[in-house]
């Protein structure tokens, strides 16, 4: 009950953020976005027809009024129909699950493997393994996502390489086909995240290792490994949780956008990209508002998780 109230208060606190995100998105994608008048008109339209369509699209109204209209549609979840004629909700219901099962394995692997590598590097810090892991991490960070994708594709999917997986496309009707299609994108997503995650996790672990309470634990004879895996790691949980939670919105849209466009996978990232290119407002509206809401949810959820792991964080 208490926690529910807390969550509600936090959600309310997220309102300015939602207003900001929708405002910026509206301005960029709709107000200054592509003019769709001619898209909706036949060949050789008359001036009257043009005027009529512009009115219909609200192009003749002032900024604020159009933004409020945009907000109203978001609040009422009235996302309308995409330019393909498909209802936006149906489009999202179709594409979001695809993106989820596409991105999730690489996302989880990136964080888990990154954390493991960071643990090893921090535990043996200053030794050769640490140096090796950090060198690999910097190297990984220096390779562009795009190059990673193409590289994995050449090595794993092309006839010059191992030719093990399909070059592009998507099929998740059976577990087998899902695995063949998801492997290369997963490896690419994981690889790209790995360098950043390893460096980040190592730096917070090493910082925690230098704290006074670690010296206290040592001074009382607690074994090194126990100090490392219990006392230090529990103190690292806050930054770890923050890192994972806040990368969810980035990966969900940003990561999916490139991977899906490249491999031609019908997920929400590709749908978003196409909507931007064609100025498909109903789709953009839906994606942007959902992203903003996702972000605020992440903020609230992160706060609640903090309470679970750090006794100093309390609900006021």
């Amino acid at each position, binding site marked *: 009950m208490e926690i529910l109230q807390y969550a509600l208060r936090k959600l309310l606190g997220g309102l300015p953020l939602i207003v900001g995100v929708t405002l910026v998105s509206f301005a960029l994608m709709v107000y200054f*976005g592509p003019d769709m008048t001619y898209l909706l008109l036949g060949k050789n339209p008359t001036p009257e027809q043009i005027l009529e369509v512009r009115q219909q699209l609200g192009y003749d109204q002032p900024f604020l009024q159009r933004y409020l209209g945009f907000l109203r549609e978001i609040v009422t979840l009235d996302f309308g129909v995409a330019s393909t004629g498909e209802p936006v909700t149906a489009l999202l219901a179709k594409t979001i699950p695809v993106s989820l099962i596409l991105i999730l394995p690489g996302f989880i692997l990136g964080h888990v493997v990154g954390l493991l590598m960071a643990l090893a590097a921090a535990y043996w810090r200053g030794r050769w393994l640490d140096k090796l892991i950090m060198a690999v991490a910097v190297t990984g960070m220096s390779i562009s996502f795009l190059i990673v994708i*193409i590289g994995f594709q050449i090595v794993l999917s092309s006839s010059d390489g191992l030719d093990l997986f399909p*070059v592009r496309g998507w099929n998740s009707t059976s577990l087998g086909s899902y695995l063949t299609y998801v492997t290369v994108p997963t490896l690419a997503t994981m690889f790209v995240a790995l360098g950043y995650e390893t460096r980040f996790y190592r730096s917070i672990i090493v910082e925690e290792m230098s704290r006074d309470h670690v010296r206290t634990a040592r001074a009382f004879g607690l074994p090194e490994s126990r100090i490392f895996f219990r006392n230090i790691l529990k103190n690292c949980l806050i930054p770890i949780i923050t890192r994972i939670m806040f990368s969810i919105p980035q990966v969900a849209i*940003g990561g999916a956008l490139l991977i899906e466009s490249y491999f031609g996978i019908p997920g929400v990232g590709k749908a978003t*990209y196409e909507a931007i290119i064609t100025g498909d407002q109903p789709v953009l509206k839906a994606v942007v508002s959902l992203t903003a809401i996702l972000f605020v949810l992440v903020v609230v959820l992160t706060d609640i998780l903090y309470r679970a792991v750090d006794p100093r964080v309390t609900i006021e």
Partner: protein
Amino acid sequence: MSAVALPEIPPARARGESLWRKAARKFARDRLGMVALGVVLAYFVAAVGVWLGWWAMGWPDLTGTKWEAVSGTHWFGTNIIGQDIFDRAIYSTATAFEVGLIVALVATAIGAILGGFAGFFAGTWIDEVLVWLMGVLDAIPFYLFVAAVAYALTDNPWAMHVAMISTFWVGTGRLIRGEVIKLRGMEYVEAAHSIGVPEVVIIFRHILPNTSHILLVQASVMFVGAIKAEVILSFLGLGIKDGMSWGLMIDESTKEVLAGFYNNFLAASLLMFGLVMAFNAVADALQDALDPRKVG
């Protein structure tokens, strides 16, 4: 202990100078950092040569036939329509520097100014608005935002730069804000305040110069970020419009790669990797050299 004299607070300038001198000495001793700096300088020379028109000017010309192999005339071979890949890759180096430098410098400046204002006016509405703005920009996934800006400014050759700058400054802004909040409480700032030095002067003359080490590291991080983002944006059709870049080369190469011709892809990726890797190493060495905990 009463026997120990309190160290007097040194003026901002002197502290800054000794920090930089120490950092320079430390950097010079960092062998990996120095090698990386040499590599970056070599790339820079290649870029300057392009800007001066000394080389790589034949990048758009059809100087050969389709997919020629590596040879004395075509060092990296030719692409699908017979253009010289080496020239295109070198020309793209200049593009990379253009994008990286412009984005890094402008975003750093904006981050310093807005972050400085937010920090100096922490607790007032100015800070709240700026923090809100940073939160909003953080809440929009990067590629979605960049794609939107690029599209809103369609046909504008600066669209990509604007998009990157308007998101990249946020990280610097937050760091500077935090640092300024720390510096604001320092004695010399309070002293300046108490004798009536205008706030803008305090921010720009007394506070921001003391954050220059953060700005330098941030700028180098953003330089790398911009080069990497350019590649992806150009591939998505939202990046470089006129000219040539590694991103466009890789985009071009995606068709060639599937046909088994790798020169274009390799040239662009390896050159890009070399610059980004070297720059990352320079940024790391800089960070080590400037780390006040290690210098002080």
